[in-house]
């Protein structure tokens, strides 16, 4: 029996720093996805929301908040919170309901309104909270991205020019994406001229935080057929595995890795797509487009290797070959990625799936990867959360 579900419709509210209530973005994205699917709101049987923790109680119960905003109509509700993987876990809940036969068609939606300035921890003296402790001694988010970047330079010979080339590529990709926040082309010289934040990373190497909303209408393959959309893109796998002890990479917000004296060291990022490939029954050689979490330019190169698009250490070579540019063998971040969007946490993983759905339908316009037949997303966030989703035709 197929464990696939169909993506009947997708919708987004453009990313930006709009400063409005997150519910507005979620409703706009949901209505766009419903219209795209040709499904009436009253026909939705399951609503799955990705939570936001920065918008009070309505954000903690996002599924219900969006359902109420669209008009209570008796659907079953779910809300998922899993940091950067919140959208994927909300999607996994909808998929489980569909595959179990509890619902035929579901709305999955995530939206966020982000505060201005630095992301800082909650107030008060809290030495038991690792997030408080690391800020207390001066360790911010860019610290971690910079440590990974410098490590790549030392181990694999990556250069500052390679990192800048990721920004230039993604800016080029996102330039004409109507949902992207930053639509401006940049040169390597622009990146090099931006302020140093955490050596070797400059301001333009690091992604911002944004407001935005994204939604999907997903359903059983039977339902898609009845809707006359038997050829709709399918979700073939959703991986939301945890890390495995002992985790060998220093992860935000920790001050130390696990100790690997009695357990083998593991790489978490690599485990996420590995499980997705296994579940989908396809391999990296079948992938012709990817959307990855480029929290920093250098991190995109780590993802190339974790997705097994190339061997460990050869991410910069793959970039330099042009393979990951539009027109290349396996374009990465045709949407423009976080470089052009900025991160809207509960919406971001869903936005990645929206882009792949457009790519599979051949409707991505100038961003289209010709003949796209299988794509993969990948993201990773705090406290052992991450996800990887495979979408195919």
């Amino acid at each position, binding site marked *: 029996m197929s464990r696939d579900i169909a993506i009947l419709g997708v919708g987004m509210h453009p990313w930006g720093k709009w400063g409005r209530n997150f519910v507005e973005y979620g409703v706009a994205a949901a209505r766009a996805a419903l219209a795209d699917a040709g499904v009436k709101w009253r026909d939705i049987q399951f609503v799955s929301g990705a939570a936001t923790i920065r918008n009070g109680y309505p954000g903690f119960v996002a599924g219900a908040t969006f359902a109420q905003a669209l008009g209570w109509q008796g659907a079953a509700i779910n809300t998922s919170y899993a940091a950067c993987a919140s959208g994927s876990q909300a999607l996994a809940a909808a998929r489980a309901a569909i595959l179990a036969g509890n619902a035929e068609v579901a709305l999955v939606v995530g939206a966020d309104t982000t505060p201005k300035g630095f992301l800082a921890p909650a107030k008060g003296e809290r030495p038991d909270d690792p997030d408080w402790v690391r*800020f*207390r001694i001066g360790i911010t988010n860019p610290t971690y991205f910079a440590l990974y970047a410098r490590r790549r330079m030392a181990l694999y010979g990556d250069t500052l020019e390679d990192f800048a080339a990721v920004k230039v590529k993604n800016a080029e990709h996102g330039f004409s994406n109507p949902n992207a926040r930053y639509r401006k082309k940049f040169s390597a010289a622009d990146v090099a001229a931006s302020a140093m934040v955490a050596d070797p990373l400059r301001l333009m190497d690091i992604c911002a935080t944004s407001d935005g909303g994204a939604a999907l209408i997903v359903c059983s393959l039977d339902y898609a057929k009845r809707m006359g959309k038997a050829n709709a893109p399918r979700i073939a796998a959703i991986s939301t595995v945890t890390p495995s002890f*002992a985790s060998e990479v220093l992860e935000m917000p920790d001050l130390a890795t696990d*100790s690997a*004296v*009695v357990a083998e060291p593991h790489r978490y990022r690599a485990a996420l797509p590995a499980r997705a490939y296994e579940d989908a029954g396809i391999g990296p050689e079948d992938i012709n487009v990817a959307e990855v979490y480029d929290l920093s330019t250098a991190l995109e190169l780590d993802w190339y290797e974790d997705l097994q698009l190339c061997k460990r250490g050869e991410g910069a070579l793959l970039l330099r070959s042009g393979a990951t540019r539009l027109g290349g063998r396996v374009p990465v971040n045709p949407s423009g990625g976080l470089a052009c969007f900025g991160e809207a946490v509960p919406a971001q993983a869903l936005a990645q799936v929206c882009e792949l759905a457009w790519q599979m339908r051949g409707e991505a316009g100038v961003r289209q990867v010709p003949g796209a037949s299988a794509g993969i997303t990948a993201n990773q966030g705090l406290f052992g959360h991450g996800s990887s989703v495979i979408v195919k035709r």
Partner: protein
Amino acid sequence: MSTPVLEGWFSDAGGQAHLIGSRCCKCGTYYFPKAGNFCRNPDCDGTEFEDAPLSRSGKLWSYTNASYQPPAPYIAAEPFIPFAIAAVELERERMVVLGQVISGVGVDALQVGMPMELVIETLSVEAGGEKTVWKWKPVAEQGS
């Protein structure tokens, strides 16, 4: 009068600066900061831990700096003085530990793989007095 910014996380008793971690009495896994009452090794259900002074030196895994002033609860001097940050690999514990680099040493003086040692230095001068923290320092080369 100076006090540790985090009570019980490090010590320089006997003039030997070291981090205070803990070790599972059942499987031997090290933890920093100290573990609570449960071992996080999935094959171990240990609940007893002994304090374990961590290795005082290791190899530089990677490094960076803070060019901008971090947000609160970090307390910065006026004007803010950028500082380097090191992640150091401890061989015996098979773990990597993060910390600031001693003041006066910038990223230009650092190289992945170089030997580093732990020292206790001032973190900040605050209303409650001077706060100390652990920092990493390049090991002086022999004969230089």
